[in-house]
């Protein structure tokens, strides 16, 4: 797979999106998404503004991948998370001993982790960790 090097402009452009979890919200239809853009993908409105995505949410759906790409150790748990405050986020679960602990509705929070290495450089991003219920 051809992919951008960690030093490429794509990575630089996405810094606020990734590390500050900066997304957008449509002033017309209320759709929340990321990355930021000029036009709402849901309704086509140009009336959009920056929106700070939450770090916490609940699992909307998930799967347990036993045949991930090289450099990922199976099983990995992919999730789509309903973020508190709106919007959905796509990612991986980290630090879970038993994949069966993840189910629809499970509470999770984002933690910064190394997501991959490319040509010797680390690439960081958010993964989801299960929230201990008190």
């Amino acid at each position: 797979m051809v992919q951008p090097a960690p030093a490429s402009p794509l990575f630089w452009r996405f810094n606020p999106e990734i590390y500050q979890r900066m997304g957008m919200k449509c002033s017309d239809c209320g759709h929340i998404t990321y990355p930021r853009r000029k036009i709402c993908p849901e309704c086509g409105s140009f009336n959009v503004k920056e929106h700070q995505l939450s770090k916490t949410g609940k699992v909307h759906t998930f799967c347990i991948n036993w045949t991930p790409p090289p450099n990922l150790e199976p099983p990995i748990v992919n999730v789509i998370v309903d973020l508190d405050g709106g919007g959905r986020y796509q990612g991986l679960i980290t630090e879970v001993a038993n994949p069966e602990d993840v189910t629809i509705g499970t509470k999770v929070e984002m933690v910064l982790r190394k997501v991959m290495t490319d040509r010797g450089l680390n690439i960081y991003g958010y993964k989801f960790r299960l929230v201990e219920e008190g």
Partner: protein
Amino acid sequence: MRGKVAIIGVGMIPFGELFEMGLEEMVQQAYINCLNSVDKGISTKDIKAAWFGQWSGGGMIGQGALCGASLATMIGNREIPITRTENGCPTGSDAFRNACLGVASGVYDVVLAMGAEKMRDKPGVESLIAAGGGGGGILGLHPSWMLGMGGPVLQALYATRQMHELGYTMEDYARVAVKNHHNGVACPYAHYRFEVTMERVLNSPIVCWPLHLLDCCPQTDGAACAIVCRADIAKSFTDKPVYVLGSNTGLDHKNMWDKHSFVEMLSTVRAARGAFEMAGIKPDDVDFAEIHDCFTNTELMNLEDIGFCKKGEAANLLREGYWNRDGAKPINPSGGLKAHGHPIAATGIGQICENYWQLREEVEPERQVKLKNGIALSHNVGGDAFGVSCVTILSRSL
């Protein structure tokens, strides 16, 4: 489009692991078969334009930069315009749609739609990775968002939610594989021609829970093409043309996290709605269909999204035999992607070949479905986050 365009010939090669054939040879054999299929004969010179569906652009085999000249060189016809189109898993059926528009435009009387894909020159895992399942960069997004994604993951995220919202089970999914493998046994063009039992599917390794290996379609090489022409001149090529009633592409978000639902694909809903409207018919008017069963759970979702049944009913109807080859509405008599194989850009046109043959009642008696209205539908869904769907409706009469 209805009333303007007809199919007068189709050609396909048996799908499979065709290590001995390059993309060019696959395309040439499908093309020769197609020309030979035209009842009253046709010459290369009769074809005035072509659309070349090709998905990977050669990423699988270093065939980057495939373009119109590639197909022109393969079929030995440089006197016509050819466009290469790409639209995810519906690439072939969308190339067919563009070919139909070309005829409907009045600019070209007779045109070719070709779809071909070489998936097996690389081993499975590497091939999936070449196609972008590997993570970073794909879709122009940050790897943090895409890490660990890929075809089975995308579909499994739907399958889990189908189980949660609709009560579907892994047994329901397995039953789709059982049906389609059974159909594939009778199809000489199919990649996998063996029966599977529900036990065998459920005991096959988990690829991505809740999907087993035998819930996934294979990686397949293949090529398929069709010649379409103005409906009013079709009878000069064959006494049994098949008419294009509707051909439509429907879209949805390219990112999973923008989807409104994981038990429904709006791309399919939109493609079907527009195609039925164009054709002036209803889902009930369709005799049988070829549906995009890249994964078993997808077939159940598609049947509902197309409108063949209500949301949540597809699995029950499957248990009752409703979708069987001898049932009320046969689905995937060719074996579907599951058994027939899924050479991306060839898949959609391969379905059209099958429907052409079925509507002309030319297939083996065992495989032939019963015709009532003489109307067939084919469907694909794919692309980024299943954001693209195509529906094609064919009829043996106008």
